[in-house]
């Protein structure tokens, strides 16, 4: 049975940058990516956040190729207006409780 995981942009950024601070998690991420049992979900927003970075000049692979790979490897949840409406309501509710939406 497939196991579903959700990765936010910080996970992808840590993975792509091979952040040394998250060394112990990087191997786990690699395993998840290599294991067909896992299905990784993410949001289109996460792709936009990852795409903020520029591919180093020296590397020849194009940005389009990266997006192509990302979209097919990761199951991206489309950001529809109904998701925005729910997100807006949730943020307002959290702001009411905590007087802030910042962590």
């Amino acid at each position, binding site marked *: 049975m497939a196991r579903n995981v959700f990765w936010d942009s910080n996970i992808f950024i840590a993975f792509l940058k091979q952040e040394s601070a998250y060394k112990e998690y990087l191997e786990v991420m690699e395993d998840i990516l290599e294991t067909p049992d896992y299905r990784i979900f993410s949001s289109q927003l996460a792709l936009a956040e990852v795409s903020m970075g520029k591919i180093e000049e020296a590397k020849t692979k194009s940005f389009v190729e990266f997006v192509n790979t990302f979209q097919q*490897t990761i199951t991206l949840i489309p950001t529809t207006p109904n998701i925005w409406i729910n997100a807006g309501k*949730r943020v307002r509710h959290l702001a009411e409780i905590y007087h802030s939406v910042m962590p």
Partner: protein
Amino acid sequence: MAKNKQIHFKMHGLKKDTDDLVSPGAFGSKLVQLEKTLKLMDESANGESGFNYGIKDLKIGSVEVVLEEFPYPPLLRPQRSGIEEFNNFAAKVRSGDTALFDISHKVMLENLKDLCKGVGKNFSYAELDIQGKNSTKIIIDETFQSKAKQTVVEIEKKLPLFKGITYETHIGHLKEVDLRNEIPKAKLILFVNRIELPCICKSISIKTLCDSLNKAVSVLAKAKYDGIYRLPKSLDLVSIEIFREPGKLSDWKGKFDIPYPNRKEVI
């Protein structure tokens, strides 16, 4: 000076195999969940955390604990008690009147659902009693659990849904291209849960449609929302991009220079 409120929490085991014993794990996890729920009620009622909760008494011979609420910081007592809020909230859930709730109550309801988790499996039922005037004894049993679940379902139904047209990108497999009518039609099977979206393809050439059939594609489309269904009712395709053979995400390690914004920039 106002007296600190107390709540009595008592669990009952499953009679069939353990002679009414409750496992330490079940008791511990419910106690943690109860404290979490009380803190949430306190924050919701007072706008910020005003109380802490401590164990006042552990009863001998039964799985019963008394929790006491005390203001923290000690000299600033908030106006509303988290324990009383919890009692009122749980009583409303027990009444089964879902009209009393809206989406703003969802976090609380989810916590209440977690408190009910395992009822009928790990324990028979639990009692919550604040033993005061106008208080209601709350029985956490399978009926209460189903009412909490039903309330969450009902409030989600109340969410307003978008009605109108947007431009969106969707990813999936293009199937069943139908060229029989004046306006070609097709179906896009989304990668997400293989949901099927009907497509109108009047702006797409026949050649592109034929090339895209049964392939993984990314489509830019005018999406029509009817205010009833969460996803678009139909897509009017503007352009189609066929995916090439994907590489491995691992191949992109170390090839990005992604800036991490610092906290000040975010705020």
